[in-house]
C-alpha cells in the first residue's frame, strides 16, 4: 500500500503514466542514455579515467574525489567544501552541471527530462559498491529536482547595477576586485546568467560553502540580479 502510494505520488509529480519496477528509473533506458556520456566517462569492470573520471562507485564519492584525476578548480573546491554525490546531488548535477561548479570541465548542457535523469541514475547505481544502501528517491527530492533550473522570470530580472555596486562592496572584503584568485575564487568577468545560477545555488544551499550560503541566503532575487548586473558591467 505504501509502495503504491509512492508510485502514485511520483507519477503525479512526474506526470508520467507509470513507474518502472526499480522505483526511480529504468536502468535499461539509462544504459542507452549513457551512450551520450561514454565518450568521456568509463563505467564497469576495468573502467579507467579518460577525458572525464570513471564513474564506478560514484554514489557516495566526494566531488572531485578520484586521486590523480585533474578536476576543474570549481569542482575541487566544491568537494573540499563538502559536496558528496548522492542521488539528489547527482540529479541536480546531471540536470545542470553549472549548479555546483561554474567552471566545471564537463562540457555538457544537462539533461532536462526528469524521467531520463532517473533512468540514467538507475543505470549508474548498478556500478556503485553498495547499491542497496542508496536511498530510493523520495517524492520531495524528485519535485526539487524538477525546479533546479531557475525559472525564466528570475533569469530575466534586470538588475539595478547602482544597487549592485553597493552590494558588491560586501563581496569585495574577500573577493578581489581585480579578479585575482588565490584561495578565494574570482567573481569578476562572469556571464550574468552564470553568476545568477551560482548565487541561487548557494542561497538554496545546493552548493556547500557555509560563508557563501549565508551571504547569498539573505539576498533576494532582485539583489542577486543587481550584483550580476554590476559585475557584468565591470567587464565592459
Amino acid at each position: 500500500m505504501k509502495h503504491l502510494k509512492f508510485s502514485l505520488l511520483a507519477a503525479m509529480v512526474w506526470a508520467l503514466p507509470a513507474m518502472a519496477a526499480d522505483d526511480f528509473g529504468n536502468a535499461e533506458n539509462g544504459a542507452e542514455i549513457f551512450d551520450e556520456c561514454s565518450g568521456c566517462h568509463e563505467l564497469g569492470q576495468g573502467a579507467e579515467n579518460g577525458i572525464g573520471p570513471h564513474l564506478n562507485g560514484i554514489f557516495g564519492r566526494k566531488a572531485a574525489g578520484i586521486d590523480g584525476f585533474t578536476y576543474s578548480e570549481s569542482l575541487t573546491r566544491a568537494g573540499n567544501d563538502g559536496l558528496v554525490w548522492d542521488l539528489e546531488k547527482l540529479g541536480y548535477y546531471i540536470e545542470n552541471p553549472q549548479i555546483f561548479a561554474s567552471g566545471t570541465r564537463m562540457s555538457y548542457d544537462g539533461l532536462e527530462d526528469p524521467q531520463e535523469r532517473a533512468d540514467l541514475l538507475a543505470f549508474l547505481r548498478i556500478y556503485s559498491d553498495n547499491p542497496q544502501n542508496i536511498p530510493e528517491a523520495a517524492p520531495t527530492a524528485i519535485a526539487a529536482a524538477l525546479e533546479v533550473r531557475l525559472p525564466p522570470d528570475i533569469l530575466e530580472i534586470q538588475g539595478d547595477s547602482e544597487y549592485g555596486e553597493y552590494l558588491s562592496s560586501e563581496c569585495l572584503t574577500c573577493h578581489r576586485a581585480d579578479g585575482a584568485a588565490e584561495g578565494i575564487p574570482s567573481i569578476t568577468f562572469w556571464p550574468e546568467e552564470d553568476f545568477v545560477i551560482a548565487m541561487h545555488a548557494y542561497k538554496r544551499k545546493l552548493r556547500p560553502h557555509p560563508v557563501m550560503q549565508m551571504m547569498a541566503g539573505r539576498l533576494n532575487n532582485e539583489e542577486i540580479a543587481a550584483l550580476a548586473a554590476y559585475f557584468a558591467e565591470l567587464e565592459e
Partner: protein
Amino acid sequence: MTLNRRHFLGATAAGAAALSAPMVMGGSHSKPRVVVVGGGAGGATAARYINKDSGGEIDVTLIEPTRRYYTCFFSNLYIGGFQEMEDLGHGYGNLASQGVNVVHDWAVGIDRDAKTVALAGGGSVPYDKLILSPGIDFVDGSVPGWDLSAQNAMPHAYKAGSQTELLKAQIMAMPEGGTFAMIAPPNPYRCPPGPYERISMVAHALKANNPTAKILVVDPKPKFSKQGLFEEGWNNHYGGMIERIGPDFGGENFTVDPAAMTVDIDGSVENVDVCNVIPAMKAGRICEMAGITDGNWAPVNAADMSSKMDADIHVLGDASAQGDMPKSGFSANSQAKVCANAVRGALTGSRVFPAKFSNTCWSLIDTDDGVKVGATYEATDEKIAKVDGFISQTGEDAALRKATYEESLGWYSGITADMLG
C-alpha cells in the same frame, strides 16, 4: 539631524541633485569635507569608498599617525612562523594617489561645535562629517601590577608591529622547558578568537623549538570563541602543552609582577619566562576626548554607524558599541561601507541603500588546520542584530581545514586591497 537630512534628500530624489553639496555645506568651501581618524580596517575602507564613490565631490582627509600600518589580523601567524612581519605592513600610497588627503599625525582633540579636529603637530582640520575609527586602548588597572610602562617586560602584542616582534623574540628565547603565560582579556575585546589563535601559534612555535615548554592561559571568562574547535585542535596537535585556568579555578583573580616575572593566580605564585598580558579594552582615546563614549565604548546608531551623541560623527569598528557584531577587522570593513554610503548620501544626495553587515573570522590552529566562524547582521532601531551564522565543525577532514586556511589567505589579500586600494 543626520537622519532627517538624509531622509529629506532620499525622499526627494529629483531635488537631491539640485540641492547638492554647496547648499548642504554653506560657507565658502566648495566641497563637503569628510575627516577620518584612524587608518585601519574601518577608517581606511571608509576613506577609500567615500573618495572613490563620490567621484571627487567630497574632500576626504585621513588622519593616521603611522606611515606603515601593520594588520593586527594575521599577526598571530607571524608568531607561529606562517607570515613575515614585512608582509603584514601596508602603506597609504595608493589611497593618496587616488585622491585621499593622507595626514600622518595624531588627532589630539575634537571641537564638536567648531567641527574641527586638532592635530598633535599643530593646526586643525575642519569637517562636515567626522568618522572615528581609532581601534582600542587599554583600561588602566585592569591587570593588577601591569601598566603600559611594563609593556616591554610583559608585552600585550594586541596592536600589531613592534609589540608582536618583541613577544615572538621572547618566545624564541625561552629556556628549555620554560613557561609562557597569557593573561586573557575579559569581554568585550578586539578579535574574540585572537588570544586562542595566539595560544595555538605559540604552541606551534614551541613544539618545533622547545617541545618541553608549558603554556599557561589565565582566563577570566568561563567560555570563549570557537572553544570546542580550539580545544580539539590543542588536543590533537599539542597534547599536554596547554593549560587553561578559567574563573572556576581562580582565572579571574590574578596579579602580575613584571620585575620578578611572576603571575599570582588565586594566591598561587608561578614563575614565568614570558608573560603576554592582554588587558581589558576600551575605545581608542580620541572617542573619550570627543565626549561620545558611554562607559568604555562609543554607542552608535546601527543604520549608519552615527554616534548616538553627535549626528555628524560616525564611529567604526572596535571603538563602537553597536550590538551583536564582534570587534574584528572584517566587521570594521563591513561597517565602513554602510557608513560610507550613508555619509555620501547625506553630503551629496546620492542613493542610500539599506545597511547590510557581515563578518567572518578565520583562525589557524596548526599547519593547514584552519577554522572559521561568521554571521550576517542587519540594522534594527536598537542595534546591529545578528541574522544568520555558521561555524566550522569539530572533526572536519584535513582537506576542508586546508581549504579553510587557504581561503583565509585569499581573504587577507582581498580585505587589504579593499581597504587600501
